[in-house]
């Protein structure tokens, strides 16, 4: 959107940020359901949400400057930096995997299938959400670490997150990557066991998703971005502090039943939503190094060059 500053009168107009996000998104639920908990929203900035079904689509829209801010994960970050050569910065975190004992995507198998560890997978079929995605890489790294050749020793197929659990039960696959809220549901149903998590694969907890912004946006609307980040962290704090209300709002937006959410949302069984919004560059860099070491990435990328935490508010 065009937003030129035109003297004093115009400066009062809120800036509109087009934010690319994935489904389901934490912030989207609270920004739309509970604007009352926000401080700057509608005053210094407004948001036009664009929901993407995958991080790939989100990245190309971001690269084409059709969104100002966008959700990002590690592989799109590397692509944005090395292939698209975009001028962008990651400004706050969204979800972290495995930090502080929080949930990380778990690869599950049938309890009675004999698959208990990665090495048991020889000759079996494993399902991930998308080949070439970060979970696919995690699986491959894990297999290689245990002396198995992906694709020849283990067949890797794709399935959508909501169906992977049922596919395991239905013996269509022997292992599948399970995220929340499905992990909670599968646990409740029973009969599946955890085999490993992404933390085991990457040998580190990881920032899973984070928000990136174009350099130009950060330069032109620094104050508004700061206000947005401030509001975002407000929703997180509010969520942690008012869990039941948060569950209700989240359920209303995404139609996930409240009882499912009550089981995990914003607890240790969930990925971590950090109150401080800090992106842990060290952890992120460790993931990159693992990818380089295992040959999935040709050369290393200095992640810190693409992270700018200066938009986070000073400690409250």
């Amino acid at each position, binding site marked *: 959107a065009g937003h030129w500053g035109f003297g004093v009168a115009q400066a009062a107009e809120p800036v509109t940020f087009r934010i690319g996000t994935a489904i389901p998104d934490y912030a989207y639920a609270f920004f739309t359901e509970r604007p009352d908990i926000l401080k700057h929203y509608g005053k210094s900035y407004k948001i036009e949400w664009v929901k993407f079904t*995958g991080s*790939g689509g989100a*990245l*190309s829209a971001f*690269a*084409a*400057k059709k969104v100002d801010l966008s959700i990002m994960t590690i*592989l*799109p970050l590397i*692509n*944005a930096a090395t*292939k*698209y*050569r*975009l001028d962008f910065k990651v400004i706050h975190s969204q979800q972290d995997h495995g930090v502080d004992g929080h949930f990380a995507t778990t690869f599950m198998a049938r309890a009675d299938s004999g698959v208990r560890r990665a090495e048991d997978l020889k000759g079996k*079929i494993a399902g991930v959400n*998308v*080949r*070439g*995605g970060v979970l696919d890489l995690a699986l491959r790294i894990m297999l290689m670490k245990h002396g198995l050749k992906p694709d020849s020793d283990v067949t890797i*197929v*794709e*399935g*959508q997150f*909501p*169906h992977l659990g*049922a*596919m395991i039960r*239905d013996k*269509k696959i022997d292992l599948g990557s399970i995220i929340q809220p499905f992990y909670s549901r599968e646990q409740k149903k029973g009969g599946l066991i955890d085999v490993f998590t992404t933390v085991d694969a990457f040998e580190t907890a990881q920032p899973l998703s984070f928000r990136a912004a174009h350099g130009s946006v950060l330069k032109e609307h620094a104050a508004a971005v700061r206000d947005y980040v401030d509001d975002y962290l407000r929703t997180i704090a509010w969520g942690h502090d008012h869990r039941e209300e948060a569950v209700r709002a989240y359920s209303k937006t995404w139609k996930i039943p409240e009882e499912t959410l009550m089981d995990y949302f914003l607890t240790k069984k969930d990925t971590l939503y950090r109150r401080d919004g800090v992106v842990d560059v060290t952890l992120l860099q460790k993931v990159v190094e693992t990818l380089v070491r295992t040959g999935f990435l040709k050369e290393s990328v200095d992640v810190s060059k693409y992270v700018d935490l200066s938009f986070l508010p000073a400690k409250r």
Partner: protein
Amino acid sequence: MAQGKPRVDVDMASGSREPAARRWAALRWLAAGVAHYFSVLLFFGLWEFVARSGWVNPWVFPPVTVSLAEWGRSLATGDIFHPMGLTLLRALGGLTMALGVGITLGLLMGRYRLVEWFFEPLIAIGFPAPKIAFLPLFVLWFGFFNTAKVLIVFTSCIFPLTLYAYHGARSVDRFYLWSALSKGSRGFALLRKVVLPAALPHIFDGFQVALIVSFIVAFVAEMVTGGGGLGFEMIKAAQDAETPRAFAMLFTISLLGYGTIKLAEWLRALLLFWHIEHEAH
């Protein structure tokens, strides 16, 4: 000049050609070829210009020459042929199955009230349903590999095929039917000998549409559920931010489709040579 207007039989007079004139003819043929594909060249030219103008990030929207070069590379190394074969197999496999079932069902619906009563509303409600949403179910039932994708192509193609055949059967000139009925044709013979040929122009419309649908659905099914093929390769390339490669996949499906569509048109001219539409060609 108008193509329809002359509608006259081809000029009979065609003298033998001199060798000198033959060179001219070759040149003219070349010129006609360029003229024929002028729109494509124009489109590519525009694309190239825009991509190089700096209005868009050239990594996101690479110049057409870069994409074509990548395409040429994958053709040269041959690594595109395997996915190409997979997609072709799924598309044409599903289409072939749908042809048999769809045309038969459509013709039956057009001729028998009971069949029409039962299937017509089902077709009307099943057609606008997004088949892709049922892909997971297909995968559950039929596995990850070709079967599920072939079947999703089948389910997608069957609707247009049935609908066109149905309308074709319904608009058969009643005098053809009466003539056949009074010569003792009944049931299947009537269907095969009169309704089918009379509805053939409609059926071919449906076939041409279904052909395109089959390519699109096979590709999209591969995009969504993987398992190799052009669609899968394209989504993978997009994920890896290898945009030229993604375009190469699109070129491939487009050209594959173009070839088969032309083949279908040729088949149409062959089978419908008796039909008046043939006169205008």
